[in-house]
């Protein structure tokens, strides 16, 4: 069977200044733009395959390209070099509250976000109660999203995205939020999702415990390149060894 995720020489460049605002005025009157052009590769030469049912953890220090890599797999960033093929639908647990609209109620947001991720109205109707149950927001179904506490926002978002019945799950650090009771609930939900053995999970985390708990394989990303690919314990050992020498 073909691998569900296939990255081939994947690379993406960013400008060193975060906001690179060019202006028409400048181009018209000076004939060129003076905005900084210095770029760096956030991810480069990333080549790997993930088979169905694998649980892969991305390991690496802050700012070394883990989330960028995950976003390219999710299709919300486009590579400048190489390609990534994803076979099957994706449930992206990445910046999960991002798409939620402050002025809309919890109910309207559920329909909007689940719809955006490809659920039909009928499917949402069927799963609506379950989503609200999981997020424990019965009393707030018609409350505007902006009035929610940050914990409530994440609960609702996590609940909606994990209700997507997709074969590939991408997780970016979302497990670090919420109170310990809800965190436990999220872990259980992920365990349930993984139980069948045919879902593929791709996870970014700084928590060694979570990585060892959920993942079997680890990719170590350093300065945008994959420097180790093996079982999760080996990868974490390599990462720790490097961080120790660095410090």
């Amino acid at each position, binding site marked *: 069977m073909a691998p569900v995720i296939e990255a081939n020489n994947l690379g993406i460049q960013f400008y060193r200044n975060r906001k690179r605002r*060019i202006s028409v005025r400048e181009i018209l009157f000076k004939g060129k733009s003076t905005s900084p052009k210095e770029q760096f590769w956030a991810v480069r030469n990333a080549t790997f395959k993930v088979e169905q049912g694998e649980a892969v953890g991305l390991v690496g220090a802050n700012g070394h390209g883990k989330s960028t890599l995950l976003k390219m797999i999710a299709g919300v960033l486009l*590579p400048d070099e190489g390609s990534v093929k994803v076979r099957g639908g994706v449930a992206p647990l990445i*910046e999960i509250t*991002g798409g939620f609209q402050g002025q809309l109620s919890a109910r309207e947001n559920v329909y909007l976000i689940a719809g955006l991720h490809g659920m039909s109205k009928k499917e949402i109707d069927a799963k609506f109660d379950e989503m609200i149950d999981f997020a424990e927001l019965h009393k707030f179904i018609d409350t505007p999203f902006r009035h929610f506490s940050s914990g409530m926002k994440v609960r609702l978002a996590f609940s909606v995205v994990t209700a997507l019945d997709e074969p590939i799950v991408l997780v970016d650090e979302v497990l670090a939020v919420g109170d310990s009771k809800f965190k436990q609930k999220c872990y259980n939900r992920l365990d349930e999702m993984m139980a069948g053995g045919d879902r593929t999970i791709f996870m970014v985390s700084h928590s060694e415990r979570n990585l060892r708990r959920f993942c079997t394989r680890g990719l170590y990303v350093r300065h945008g390149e994959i420097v180790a690919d093996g079982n999760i314990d080996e990868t974490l050992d390599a990462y720790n060894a490097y961080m120790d020498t660095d410090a």
Partner: protein
Amino acid sequence: MTLAADPASDRAATRRRTLAVLNLLVRRDIKLRYAGAWLGYGWTMLEPLLMTMVYAFVFGVLLPTRDFAETPYVLYLITGVLAWNWFNTAVNEGMTAVSSEAKIVRSADVPRWIWVARTCTSTMMIFIFAIPVIVAFILWFRHPVSWLIILFPLGIVLQFAFAFGIGLLLSPLAVLAGDVKRLVRVLLRVGFYLTPVLYSLNAVHSRFGDYTALAKLNPIAGSMSLFRAGLWSSDLFAWYFYAAQVVITLLTLALGFWVFKRLEGTVLKEL
């Protein structure tokens, strides 16, 4: 992004999904705009009706032009103002479609052009919902309607396609260059006066002769004339002007898609 065993059926599924998402977004917009039914409707119609009254006073009473002596000028104005309003908001909102919804654009893997299509469709729906107001004016003035009114829907298609092309072209530029929005707003105001909204090109022809042909290449002048043809058959252009407008519109669409595709990756990084 998804690749299944059968690419053809998979593409069809993707297209269905894309249309479902577009439908969802447009419904959301309409619902928000017309919340409270009549109140929302009245609020939406307030600006075009007020502006029509202002234009009618300035150009129909203060500076009356002879050509409108027998035409109910208010009816002529309201069709033009509503149509221009659609184009104006479609371009303004289409241009900011990606930047103003940055967070949601960044979080969902749907074809990005959908955000521009959404604003064009929502603003088109506002225009369509305003048709009863035009009908009310027709009835009020007992203005005759000819069979040429069947051209009205063609005007909608032409204007939608042109606005969509412009939106696709501008929305990535508006993300990358800060002052594009301001520039476009100025150009739109110029466009308003170059487009026969307040006047008829027949009046222009009597003074500028064949140069009027230039104004007739404008696709919005075209949609305007298609909207009005059933009410004033003299507003109809020769067929080749429409052919030229269609070509210009298709070129704009092609350029829009090309620019949008080329800048998509860069735009996503900047959001």
